[in-house]
């Protein structure tokens, strides 16, 4: 659980760490070049939705990369991690070849290390705060690649450790939604000795990790192993259960649940409200990705249909847009095109995703915005009328505001259009729980850093609070909520004073 600064400093003074520190000179550490992740060849990987793009590091590569880490006295990288992974400790375990120990260090604070190693934007978190970046202006230690390596190594070894659990305290807590936020929360609460049940609306556990992120970035099997790990920690999962609809929060209270964590995620997909947008062939990225990722519609064996097209246009510039357009390519599109209203520089997608997309032959029409959809006689979209944009002054998001260029309209042929311009919070929980304070955007209001809502026994985090963010920020919220819910429950039900 939470490790104090002093604890972390003392750990650094352990004999094996000191030995490692002495073993290689700083100069020699710095002389090692950052490892390159091996990737599947683009022409091979676009043949299947289920071939992972990044292959992973070998043990030799990982151990060499781990020597680059300076085991800093003041590990700033940890400040960049929303779930406070003890980064030097796990990396030094890799350096000494004790990979299973490295994996168990990850699990001290992260319920989903194999997931985070794949989908976290490390380049703007831990890696951005790495000594190499902050002080040397050199490429950071490949923390993300190493995290993935350790988690994969453990999974493939079959020797999977279960984190240390506190003695059961018998207090029942419910988690609403089994996405990254809920899973992270569940893991921490199980470690603290709570009786945790996760309620999921869909038929599969994992939330966005299953329905959203494609298997070429995050294989479902990897997610399942992490979920199995939580099961082994005693976490219970109930699918096909919509809290607020199947049963109310009050019903669950009657069943003995003392507190709730709402991680119900972003629900409603946003559309642009332009003419023709409800024509057939135009869908949200949620729909498109759910059909393929959750329902397996790319396979002929699946009963769920999917629309394929020669020309597919995806509107948006985030990770979801990249996931959608790369999925379209894998479903056989000859032209798979991103249409984005700002320039590439402002794209919210990870640089790696844009890079991978370009390798796969994705076309980018930046500074371009759809203004109308034109349908055929069967109401199926056939063309998109777009308008060119130019960048003006920065707006509230700090990015330069796109301004339409008069008279620049033209049309693009497309029979499938995927709209990936963001989501609004899922309304089911806010609508069904009386007394829950909700913002004008529909997000649940919480006390910052405590994640406690206007109802004391209800905590919330992830997209239902943030409106839309990353897997790791959602997980960080889950950890914060667990810490604070523990304080709340200890004082209320277990008559223990807890240091705040």
């Amino acid at each position, binding site marked *: 659980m939470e490790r104090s600064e002093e604890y972390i400093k003392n750990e650094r003074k352990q004999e094996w760490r000191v030995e490692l520190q002495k073993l290689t000179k700083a100069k020699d550490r710095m002389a090692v070049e950052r490892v390159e992740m091996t990737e599947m060849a683009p022409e091979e990987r676009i043949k299947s939705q289920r071939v992972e793009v990044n292959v992973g590091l070998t043990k030799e590569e990982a151990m060499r990369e781990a020597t680059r880490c300076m085991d800093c006295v003041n590990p700033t990288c940890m400040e960049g991690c929303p779930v406070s992974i003890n980064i030097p400790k796990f990396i030094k375990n890799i350096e000494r070849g004790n990979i299973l120990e490295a994996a168990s260090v990850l699990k001290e604070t992260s319920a989903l290390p194999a997931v985070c190693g794949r989908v976290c934007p490390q380049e703007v978190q831990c890696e951005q705060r790495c000594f190499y970046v902050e002080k040397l202006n050199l490429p950071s230690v490949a923390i993300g690649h190493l995290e993935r390596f350790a988690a994969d190594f453990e999974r493939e070894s079959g020797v999977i450790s279960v984190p240390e659990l506190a003695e059961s305290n018998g207090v029942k807590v419910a988690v609403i939604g089994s996405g990254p936020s809920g899973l992270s929360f569940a893991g921490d609460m199980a470690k603290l000795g709570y009786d945790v049940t996760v309620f999921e*609306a869909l038929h599969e556990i994992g939330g966005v990790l299953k329905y959203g992120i494609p298997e070429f970035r995050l294989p479902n099997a990897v997610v399942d192993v992490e979920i199995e790990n939580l099961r082994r920690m005693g976490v219970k999962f109930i699918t096909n*259960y*919509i809290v607020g609809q*199947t049963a109310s929060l009050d019903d669950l209270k009657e069943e003995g649940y003392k507190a709730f964590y709402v991680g119900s995620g972003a629900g*409603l997909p946003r559309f642009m409200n332009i003419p023709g947008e409800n024509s057939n062939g135009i869908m949200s990225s949620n729909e498109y990705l759910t059909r393929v990722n959750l329902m*397996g519609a790319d396979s002929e064996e699946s009963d769920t*249909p999917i*629309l394929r097209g020669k020309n597919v246009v995806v509107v948006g510039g985030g990770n979801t847009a990249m996931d959608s357009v790369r999925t379209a390519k894998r479903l056989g599109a000859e032209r798979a095109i991103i249409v984005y209203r700002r320039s590439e520089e402002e794209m919210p997608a990870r640089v790696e995703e844009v890079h991978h997309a370009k390798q796969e032959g994705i076309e980018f029409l930046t500074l371009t915005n759809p203004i109308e959809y034109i349908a055929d006689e069967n109401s199926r979209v056939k063309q998109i009328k777009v308008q060119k944009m130019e960048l003006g002054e920065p707006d509230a998001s700090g990015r330069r505001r796109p301004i339409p260029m008069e008279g620049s309209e033209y049309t693009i042929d497309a029979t499938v259009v995927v709209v990936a311009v963001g989501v609004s919070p899922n309304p089911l929980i806010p609508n069904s729980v009386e007394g829950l304070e909700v913002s004008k955007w529909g997000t649940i209001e919480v006390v910052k850093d405590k994640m406690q809502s206007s109802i004391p026994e209800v905590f919330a985090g992830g997209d239902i609070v943030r409106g839309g963010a990353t897997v790791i920020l959602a997980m960080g919220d889950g950890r914060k909520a667990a810490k604070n819910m523990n304080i709340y429950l200890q004082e209320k039900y277990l008559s223990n004073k807890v240091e705040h």
Partner: protein
Amino acid sequence: MNKIVEKENFSEKVVKIVVEAPLIAKARKPGNFVIVRVGEKGERIPLTIAGADIAKGTITIIVQKMGVSSTKLCQLEVGEYVTDLVGPLGKPTEIHNVGTVLCCGGGVGVAPLLPIVEGYKKAGNRVITVIAARSKELLILEDEMRKHSDELIVMTDDGSYGRKGLVTEGMEEVIKREKVDECITIGPAIMMKFCSLLTKKYEIPTMASLNSIMVDGTGMCGACRVTVDGKTKFTCVDGPEFDAHKIDFDEMMSRLGGYKEEENDKMDHFQN
């Protein structure tokens, strides 16, 4: 996994299934629907709830064989299991005592209409129900409807039972005869469109319950979007009932065919 405890073939294409779902049986209200999935490769499909038995912990769904998924569901026998069942979903029908209510159902739309008829009757309304089918064999729930309605009018397209004609003919007869305060219509989209046009003429507030394409049913996918009063709404969380006079039925009908070719391919694959 939910066990099927009772099954009745209403006709070659229409099947009644009673399935174990104790929490849904308790929570459901008229107007709600469920999402069902059959088999590990199964599709998630929305189906309306025709009834529930809280004591037995079961709900009743009535299914018409249309594509692969509904056919697979209809092929399940008593003792077998539905792979996934989730609900109740959607906003329930707003039932008040308004006076006289005209309830109009066509085809399998009669099934979800039944709990609504019961609800209106219980709320103290005078309930006149018009149910319609292409022919006698396809008519469902006649006795149940008669039991909960003050008056039941049966219409068949071919005149093989009840009166010959469309549902709207039965409706208009009632509207001309007495004051109707509210109307609700559930059935094929084209039927609801003409019901709506009729009651608009007579300025009778009318609700229609839509059966759009859905994937998750919880607001996430947006496949079920429909234009109501010029604005895009999601049938799953904003509906399934909307003010019929404001629904763009033509768009709705075209959107129901949004996956037609792909669904036909799946059906060919399934049958061969």
